[in-house]
């Protein structure tokens, strides 16, 4: 069993991500938040597990569904919330919004929604580590949809050829926006795509934070020993829709996913699963779990209240930051 410190840390991170995501729902419905948001609800175990094995010198790149990645890599919660409200105090100073987050201080080097768009950038980070003999690792987060893009394959080949310290993390939530995985892939075998490039590749349960954590630990060790990249496919499910708080249940206007399927995955909620484990192993009791939740919830509410009152960027500064001055 992992130490209680680690277990509690993983749990707190998953909860922080979940509660943060849920906190956006009402402001979205009230149109206080207009920026499009791809909620990460249901996928928290992956970010929490991977982020927990990285240090601030390791780097991470991410995609459109990036809040969990950002938080797991040490991005400040307050600055995430302010960014989504479009405030100057946001992590991208109100220029980027939900889909363009960054937190360089802790190695979160950016998220961007062009599908697969940041994979090759992560290759470049890993290359820089190799050139400068640094024992660090780069992580590239992308979804199942991204495995349709050629640049992933070019990146896998080059990273393997140069034995770069890079962990490819595919979060397979079974849907590329409106298309189920077998409508976009000839075979349900994403993890095997890395094999022809000689990259060790694994398919794991992305809703099991301990499985993710342990696999990530091994992957980091492998990368830092100079053997090359690792590919991890995490099977998961987004409990909400592709974008916004809608859940894309069949029969509503974003008619995609069978109700039965969503219900089945709700039973596999990574946070509920982990809570059971923590209770069973006496890591936390029910009261302590409630306390953790309340503490995080309070912070989130506080940050919303502060962010709402903060200043928007000045319009005279529209073109500031197009270039570094």
């Amino acid at each position, binding site marked *: 069993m992992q130490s209680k410190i680690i277990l509690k840390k993983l749990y707190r991170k998953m909860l922080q991500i979940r509660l943060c995501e849920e906190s956006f729902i009402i402001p979205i419905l009230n149109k206080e938040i*207009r*920026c*499009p948001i791809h909620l990460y609800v249901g996928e928290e175990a992956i970010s929490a597990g991977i982020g927990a094995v990285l240090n601030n010198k390791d780097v991470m790149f991410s995609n459109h569904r990036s809040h969990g990645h950002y938080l797991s890599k040490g991005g400040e919660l307050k600055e995430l919330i302010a960014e989504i409200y*479009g*405030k*100057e105090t*946001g992590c991208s100073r*109100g*220029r*980027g*919004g*939900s*889909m*363009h987050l960054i937190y360089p201080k802790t190695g979160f080097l950016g998220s*961007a*929604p*062009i*599908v*697969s*768009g940041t994979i090759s950038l992560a290759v470049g980070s890993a290359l820089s580590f190799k050139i400068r003999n640094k024992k660090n690792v780069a992580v590239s987060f992308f979804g199942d*949809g*991204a495995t*349709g*893009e*050629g*640049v992933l394959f070019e990146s896998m080949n080059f990273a393997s050829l140069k034995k770069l310290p890079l962990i490819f993390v595919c979060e397979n939530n079974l849907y*590329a*926006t*409106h*298309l189920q995985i077998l*409508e*976009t*892939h000839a075979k349900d075998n994403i993890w095997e795509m890395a094999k022809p490039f000689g990259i060790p590749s694994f398919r794991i349960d992305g809703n099991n934070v301990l499985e993710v954590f342990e696999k990530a630990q091994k992957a980091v060790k492998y990368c830092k020993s100079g053997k090359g990249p690792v590919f991890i496919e995490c099977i998961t499910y987004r409990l909400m829709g*592709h*974008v916004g708080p809608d859940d894309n249940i069949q029969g509503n206007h*974003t008619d995609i996913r069978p109700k039965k399927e969503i219900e089945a995955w709700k039973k596999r909620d990574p946070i509920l699963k982990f809570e059971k484990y923590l209770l069973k192993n006496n890591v936390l009791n029910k009261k302590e779990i409630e306390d953790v939740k309340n503490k995080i919830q309070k912070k989130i509410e506080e940050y919303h209240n502060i962010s709402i009152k903060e200043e*928007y*960027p000045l*319009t005279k*500064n*529209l*073109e500031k930051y*197009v270039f570094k001055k």
Partner: protein
Amino acid sequence: MSSKNSRKLSYSLAINEALHQMMEFDSSVFLIGQGVKSPWYVGNTCNGLIEKYSEKRVIDTPISENAITGAAVGAALSGMRSIAVHPRIDFMMYALDPIINQAANWSYMFGGKVSVPVVIWGIINRGGEQGAQHSQALQALFSHIPGLKVVMPSTPYDAKGLMISAIKDDNPVVYIDDRWLYKIEEMVPEKIYSVPIGKGVIRKRGNDVTIAGISYMASEAVKAANELEKHNISSEVIDMRTVKPLDIDLVLQSIKKTGRLIVTEAAWLTGSVSASIVAEVQNRGFKYLKAPIERICLPDCPAPTSGPLEKEYYINSNDIILKVKKLLYKN
């Protein structure tokens, strides 16, 4: 046009009708691209197509812009009339090789032995705090390339007519529409008809100033002209409709009368289509001009997300009104 055989249709449903009619009319026409079965991606422009023409000719695809666009070009080289749709033109950047290096050059570099009847349909989808990578208007990139025609309809009538012309054209045509226009309605003929590629149109006649608009800004120019009329300013509005090749003759005819020109385009100022218009007009029409040509474009800055910045960033009929007043009072 006789209203007997026309009815009110929205811009997006006018595109839909063009697709239906051309797929019915010509069995070599097919549509391929991301999201053709999802209103998230393409609004209602593709309604009913799969049901009528099956998934064999209406193909929703993996997220593989490069390969899918290449396949559309290859099919066009093999007897089909392909339409490759990119529901966000930002993502179409993955497909620049098959569009620019391949499709655009194929006819010329093989001495005209083959042609590429492909429509590359890219949708501008912006606003709503979507930010830098979900906002771009990139017509200037494509208008720069010899071998490509680029059309940008601003009305339902043109949306249908230019889509039909693009499909019928034996060359690669980049068809760029803007989701800000999708709900505009007007009378649209039921029959199949073409709007000529390379021809602009006068939307409103006037004497004091010419406003040449592209796509969304052509429709804003009409609004501005109507407003200016209340202040006794008579503007002539030209909708360019095609941005490659440009209908410079039409602009010249207009400035012969007005002597003043404003060009407006909701795209970045530098290296824009509007820059090409200005260059040609000053060269061929210098003697008609009473004042320097003005442009109203987006600042050379990526799209911000923050609400107040976004409002500052985009342009509309008010910007045209202000510019016209300034231009006339100065002179």
